[in-house]
């Protein structure tokens, strides 16, 4: 891969990328498929959900002058990146319709720092733009789906970043691990399960396969994270049609499942959810207390703890959009989530993701009458 070191060359490349992103929305994937991306640039995408059009979701930022709209799907973000000293950049990006209701994909071709600034900007647009998160189960599920849907490609996991719990003298701690492998996905998953790791991202290569012969050079290298960010090197068209399509499908299915949960949307009939854990988590009273402590710290919320021992019962709100929930931990392996008067799908997604990230990952199901 070539590397652009000359500042003028880099600028020229950025201008060219901006033209691609600002072309007609239907043409953008085709243009990106033709683009060779030099270092330190990368083509990255992030899956988003919005009930509004993207123009409407970013309207306030346009008024503030932080974002300039070139086309209804193409924008330029004025943002500072880096620290001491920071520099101001104008970062072009596009947000394309992902082909599923309310699902979108933000795309940029830029260096890491710029991308991180763009992700921060997009995340901060909640609740107008809802960041989609993938649980470990969903992340693995998407990749398994991907493997089945691409029989002419051989998928090899190259890198995994994960979190694992370790015992220290001062108690349990989380440790980040990053591993480079050349493993088949199934072998890797056994390894992850054995070490009770939580996967944060997976990088894998796609090698073309003809009959039983596999190319040694990957046609696409792709990294997928729990934040539904996809970073690619290689064939954009393959990534767009396979990886992105699968992540979008997983996100769309989940957000649809979380929608219409608020009592006002349902003529006051309840639609509770349950987060089910494989282990009898709440047999340990310390875990009940830890759950309550974790939820007390739910950012940007109002909360009231009604019971914390031996079971947990609390209510909390999402101040961003006024959604509210009641949480019960009354059995040893489950948290019941009761959406209240208002509960948007975005707020449910944010709450569940927070519980997964800060407490423990489980599986969400409907919790209607048992």
């Amino acid at each position, binding site marked *: 891969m070539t590397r652009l070191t000359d500042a003028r060359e880099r600028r020229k490349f950025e201008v060219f990328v901006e033209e691609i992103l600002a072309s007609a929305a239907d043409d953008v994937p085709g243009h990106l498929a033709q683009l060779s991306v030099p270092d330190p640039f990368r083509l990255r995408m992030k899956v988003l959900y919005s009930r509004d059009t993207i123009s409407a979701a970013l309207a306030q930022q346009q008024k503030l002058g932080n974002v300039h709209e070139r086309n209804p799907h193409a924008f330029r973000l004025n943002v500072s990146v880096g620290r001491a000293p920071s520099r101001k950049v104008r970062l072009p990006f596009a947000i394309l319709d992902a082909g599923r209701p309310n699902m979108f994909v933000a795309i940029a071709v830029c260096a890491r720092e710029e991308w991180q600034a763009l992700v921060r900007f997009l995340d901060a647009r*909640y609740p107008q733009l809802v960041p989609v998160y993938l649980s470990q189960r969903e992340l693995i599920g998407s990749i398994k789906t991907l493997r089945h849907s691409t029989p002419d490609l051989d998928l090899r996991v190259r890198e995994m970043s994960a979190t694992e719990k370790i015992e220290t003298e001062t108690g349990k701690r989380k440790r980040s691990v990053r591993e480079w492998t050349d493993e088949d996905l199934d072998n890797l998953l056994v390894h992850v399960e054995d070490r009770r790791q939580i996967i944060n991202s997976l990088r894998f290569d796609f090698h073309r396969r003809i009959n039983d012969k596999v190319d040694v050079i990957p046609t696409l290298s792709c990294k997928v994270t729990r934040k539904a960010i996809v970073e690619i090197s290689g064939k954009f068209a393959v990534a767009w049609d396979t990886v992105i399509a699968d992540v979008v499908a997983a996100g769309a299915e989940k957000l649809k499942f979380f929608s219409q949960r608020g009592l006002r949307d349902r003529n006051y009939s309840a639609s509770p959810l349950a987060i089910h854990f494989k282990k009898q988590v709440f047999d340990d009273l310390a875990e009940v207390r830890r759950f309550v402590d974790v939820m007390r710290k739910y950012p940007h919320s109002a909360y009231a703890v009604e019971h914390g021992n031996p*079971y947990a019962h609390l209510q909390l709100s999402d101040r961003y959009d006024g959604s509210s929930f009641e949480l019960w931990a009354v059995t040893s392996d489950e948290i019941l989530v009761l959406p209240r008067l*208002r509960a948007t799908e975005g707020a449910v997604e944010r709450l569940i993701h927070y519980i997964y990230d800060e407490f423990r990952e489980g599986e969400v199901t409907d919790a209607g009458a*048992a």
Partner: protein
Amino acid sequence: MPELPEDEQRKVRDAAEDYQSTVHAMLAFSAFVVHDATAQRPNSHFGFGRRMTTSKANVVAPSGTVTPDIVAQKSDSYGVVAEVKRSLPSDRTKWAAHVEQIRKYDDDLTGWWTSDARIATSDTTLLLHQTRSRAFIKVLDDERKKNAEAVGPYTSVVEFNRSDERQVNYFFRLEWGDVRDADLSGRLREGVAVPIDKVIRTFANVKFYDADPPLHSLLALLWIDYFGPLVAAVAYDENLKAFPIDVSSAAIADELQRAYGSQLLEKDDRSVAFPNAKVVRKALDALVTMKLAMALPRGTSEYRVLYRQFNDDILLRFASMLKTPAEKVIEQAAFPFDERQVAVTGSAAESPRRKGHTPDPETKPAAPSKSRKKPPRK
């Protein structure tokens, strides 16, 4: 806001919990009567606080109206009327009033869900928390010795508790008297455990019955659940340092009844509405005292709630503020809201930080800190 001492905090939470537990126990007992193991029985119904008419022969209140906590009809020929007492006054001389109350219910009451509103067989049950059941039974026996008519012939005592074992259950057991339904009697004698999670799943949003909830619980619910979503529609008022939300007690009571109260249960001309507008007005008046609302002189809205974002436990905050003398409220309510409050929504430009969503300092104001400053000393 002064922080409540730990034992006060426990009492505050216990009061909220007691109310919720009572609702759950009522639901669990009602479900025990009206459901078999798989589905609701034919012609079965239940209601909380249902208006029932006593007979002319009623020894306490002939041809009057009574509102038992639970009226549960198992079939069109058998039903149970129950009163629930999670706690009793420590002064046992006051317990005789409860004996008289259940005596009124042990009668040929009218108001059942049958063609003539009467039922062939009904029993009266006092659902008592386990901690008080034995002592109350002694009082019941004493009253009966004094006067054979003091306790009705078809009255029983069922004790209940919440077992906080690995699986949290409501447990019911017949401790005194009997019920005339062989199936219910047999099971109650052995003891019936109803898992709390089944109650929550089945009646996920029933949060009230026909007794008023503790004020701090109601205020916490209103603040988190009712006013929170309304903030999006109003602009922050710099002078009031709050989001002004105009509300009416009738509209709030109506929505609470639909979402969490009486309208979730069967409704007819004998059912009662809960929570009622009176208790909602009481809560709003308390907010006025706390300087978190103002009464409006006219119009459809009676109150303007001055919504502010609290970063501590809302239940404890309201319990503490309810204890605060009115003349001290001004200085306490002003803290920690002398800084600008951040808009709840409307514009994401104003939405502050959350985990994994680092705020962009160029595009939005800073979020209010979760850490609380000490109030200035006066």
